[in-house]
């Protein structure tokens, strides 16, 4: 890991929905190259909004977001170019239902990066092998389980050779028995040195894979610390309460 290269930086970022709803409050944040950062927090805390601002699926009202040395929220930036460098995995997969698994993965490389079709296909097959779905290359998304769809979605993101991968609650829409297969792919990806930001409630993943945990509440970063200290000695009452709710939901 290169400790000195900043991959993502938030400088005093603010966002409002409408006039009154202040979703992101003066956020400052830095993610280094190769780091794996888990973002957690209660629902409505702004964590999904936060991760969507990085590739500008959500615009911000104030402040700066820098990705790999490029200011994402500047009107001078070619946002499509920047998005090529930033993979994004959605809660609901959002695979293209009218295309096969292979076509889902090769669409952006061929049309956006102008990679020759044969080369894009070769790379897609390698990625499918990596996520364990080579045998599904000709299947359509509707014939795959949720876990398989999400693994294809990860392969689709990786096909652009991104510098960063963002995950927006990648396992929240999955049946419990499929969560493991997706987390395993993500863990393997983390170990390969990919810079990752993951919004998730999977505390096991946070503990085992993450370098840092960010706890967000009401649009503010309440804690930003090592996973071990976040779980064993949370500093704030809000984090303590959140951990109680998420680790033992029955004992309220």
């Amino acid at each position: 890991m290169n400790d000195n290269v900043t991959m993502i930086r938030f400088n005093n970022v603010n966002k409002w929905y409408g006039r009154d709803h202040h979703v992101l409050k003066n956020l400052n944040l830095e993610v280094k190259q190769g780091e794996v950062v888990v973002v957690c927090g209660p629902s409505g805390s702004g964590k999904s909004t936060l991760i969507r601002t990085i590739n500008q699926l959500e615009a911000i009202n104030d402040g700066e977001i820098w990705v790999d040395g490029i200011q994402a929220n500047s009107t001078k930036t070619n946002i499509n170019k920047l998005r090529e460098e930033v993979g994004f995995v959605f809660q609901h997969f959002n695979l293209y239902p009218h295309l096969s698994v292979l076509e889902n993965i090769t669409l952006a490389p061929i049309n956006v990066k102008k990679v020759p079709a044969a080369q894009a296909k070769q790379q897609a097959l390698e990625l499918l092998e990596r996520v364990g779905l080579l045998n599904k290359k000709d299947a359509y998304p509707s014939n795959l389980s949720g876990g398989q769809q999400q693994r294809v979605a990860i392969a689709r993101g990786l096909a652009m050779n991104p510098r960063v991968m963002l995950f927006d609650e990648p396992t929240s829409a999955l049946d419990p028995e499929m969560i493991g297969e997706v987390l395993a792919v993500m863990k393997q990806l983390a170990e390969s040195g990919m810079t990752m930001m993951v919004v998730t409630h999977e505390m096991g993943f946070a503990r085992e894979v993450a370098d840092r945990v960010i706890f967000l509440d009401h649009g503010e970063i309440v804690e930003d610390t090592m996973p071990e200290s976040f779980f064993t000695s949370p500093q704030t009452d809000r984090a303590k309460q959140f951990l109680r709710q998420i680790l033992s939901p029955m004992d309220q």
Partner: protein
Amino acid sequence: MDFSNILPALPSMMDGLWLTLKLTVLSIIGGVVIGTLLALARLSKYKFLAMAAGFYVNYFRSIPLLLVITWFYFMVPFIIGWVTGTNRPVGALTSCLIAFMLFEAAYFCEIVRAGIQSISKGQINAAYALGLNYRQAMQLIVLPQAFRKMMPLLMQQSIILFQDTSLVYAVGLMDFLNTARSRGDIVGQPHEFLLFAGLIYFIISFGASSYVTYLKKRTTV
């Protein structure tokens, strides 16, 4: 009733049917293309574009097709002459084609617009997240899915268009109905010829709409 005179008239009626089908198919193609552009304009974030397209659609949906056909018959040669400076007649077929395309585009627009709006925001976000621009996202992701969903509606509208092409009799085009009518008049048997024409229209329209019903069933299951 004596249908024996229909057989000798068949070749010329086939020419008429050919014209009707040509009008229908070319109007569908032009109407869908213009209608899709109108739909994209109506959904555009640019207010003026959206308003202009909205006005176009509401206007054409509020006036009779027959009026548009007669208008264009007189206007198109005039406009072309005015633009090119030459005085060249374009003929009833060309003016009718333009009239149908522009008129039907208003209806196709509304179908395509509903189709585009039925595609989830997540699909568009996924396209943008991979670096696709607006045109690529529409062309590769949104429109292919939208057209699949709206195929039954597009075909239904096309069947109506097929029947409406008979209005070209107003400007003297010899389409299927007009040919059948005039051939019937010549031999003094208009009823038989009109009944026959009705049968052919019924077979084509009903056949096509049965196919639409089949398509609908297949896509909903």
